[in-house]
C-alpha cells in the first residue's frame, strides 16, 4: 500500500491504495469520478484520457503512484460555475457525440491540442485524435467541434 496525494480538479486528495492501482481506477473507484471512462483497457481507445500537469495521458496505463504530487484534471474539472467548457459546448453544438462513451477522453485530448496549437487544421486535428477511438460519429462532427472550440478558446 502507498499513500497517493494528488490535486484533482483543484482539490487536494490523499488515499492509501495498493501499489498496482491504476490512475483510472483511483479516479473512478476511490474518488467516484466516473466521468473518466475505461474502454479498451489496453491504451488504444483513449476513453480514459485525463490531464496530468496539463498534458493529456491515458489514465488506464498509468499508475496512481507514478503521478504522486501531480495536478490532475478530469472531465469533471472542465466546467466552471455550471458553465460548460468551450470544448464541451462545441461538442454539444456540433453534435460531436452519439453514445457519448468516448466523449470525455475525446474532449480532454482535444483541449490539450488547443493548448499547444491554437488553430489546428482538419488534418492536424485528425492526427492528434489518433489515440481516441469513436464507434458512432464517423469523426466528422468531432473535427467540427474542435474547430468550433478553437474560435472560442
Amino acid at each position, binding site marked *: 500500500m*502507498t499513500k497517493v496525494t494528488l490535486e484533482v480538479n483543484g482539490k487536494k486528495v490523499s488515499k492509501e491504495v*495498493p*501499489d*498496482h492501482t*491504476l490512475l483510472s481506477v483511483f479516479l473512478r473507484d476511490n474518488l467516484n469520478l466516473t466521468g473518466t471512462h475505461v474502454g479498451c*483497457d*489496453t*491504451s*488504444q481507445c*483513449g476513453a480514459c*484520457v485525463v490531464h496530468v500537469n496539463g*498534458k*493529456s*495521458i*491515458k489514465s488506464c*496505463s*498509468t*499508475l496512481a*503512484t*507514478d503521478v*504522486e504530487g501531480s495536478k490532475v484534471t478530469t472531465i469533471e474539472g472542465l466546467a466552471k460555475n455550471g458553465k460548460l467548457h468551450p470544448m464541451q459546448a462545441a461538442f454539444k453544438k456540433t453534435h460531436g457525440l452519439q453514445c457519448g462513451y468516448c466523449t470525455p477522453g475525446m474532449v480532454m*485530448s482535444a483541449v*490539450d*491540442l488547443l493548448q499547444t496549437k491554437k488553430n489546428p487544421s482538419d488534418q492536424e486535428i485528425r492526427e*492528434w485524435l*489518433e*489515440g*481516441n477511438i469513436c464507434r458512432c460519429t464517423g469523426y466528422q462532427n468531432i473535427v467540427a467541434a474542435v474547430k468550433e472550440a478553437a474560435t472560442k478558446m
Partner: protein
Amino acid sequence: MKSFNYHAPKDVKDATKLASSSSAFLAGGMTTIPSMKLGLASYKDVIDIKNIKKLSGIKVSGKTVTIGATTKHAEVAASKDVKKAIPALAKLAGNIGDAQVRNRGTIGGSISNNDPSACYPSACMALNAVIHTSKRKIDADKFFTGMFETALKSGELVEAVEFEIPEKADYQKHPNPASRYAIIGVFLAKHKKDVNVAVTGAKSCVYIDKDLSKKLSSNFSVSAIEGMEVKSSGMNSDMHASAEYRANLVSLYTKKAVEAC
C-alpha cells in the same frame, strides 16, 4: 493486474540495487503496464526510474546527440536541438503511437523492450548509436539481439542513447492504422563515409539492409537502387501485411527516404 511493490529510487545505484530476476524498471510504462494488465508479464517489484534526474534530457555536442533514457517522445519531437541536429529523429519521435503515448513513452523504454515494430531501434542502428547503460557502453548493432531481446543483463539499466549526427537522414514509416506501430519503417542515414538503411517491422528484429546500404554508399540516388529486389525470406507475414508486401514496402520506403534527403 497482479499486485507488486512499487519503488521510486532517486539514483541509478539504488535502482539497480533493487533490481532482481523478478523486477522491472518502469519508465513511461506504455508497454510494461499493458503487458502486466494482460497477464503477459508479472513482477514482484516495479522500479520507477522517472525520479532519477540524470536520466532525462537532451545534449548536443559537436558530433553526437545524447538523449537520456527517460526523455519522452514528445520532448524529443519538440526539441529545437534535435530538430536542428537530426531532424529525422525528431520526425520519428513525433510519429510514435499517439499524442498521449508520446507524452508518457520514453526512448529508454522503447529500445529496452525492442519490439520488432518499434521505431527507435531503426534510428539507433542507422545513426551508429552507442547505448550507455549502468554497466557499460554497447554499440547498437550488438544491442538489439532478437525479438524483444537485447544485450541487457538482468538489473542493467539504459541511461542514455548517443546518436551520431549524420550528413543527411530520413525516416519513412508505414504505420499500422490502429496501433501506429511500423508495419515497416526505414531509417536512412547518410554519414560521411557510408550510408545505413535500417529496417524495422519487417523481420523479428531490426536490421541493416546491407545490399541497399552498399549501393547507396557508392551512389546516393534513387536510380542506384531502382530495380533492386528486396528478398521477402525471413520477413513477417500477418493479417496486416504479407512478407512479399513488406519486402516491396522496404524498397519503396527506402526510395522515399532517399528522395526526402
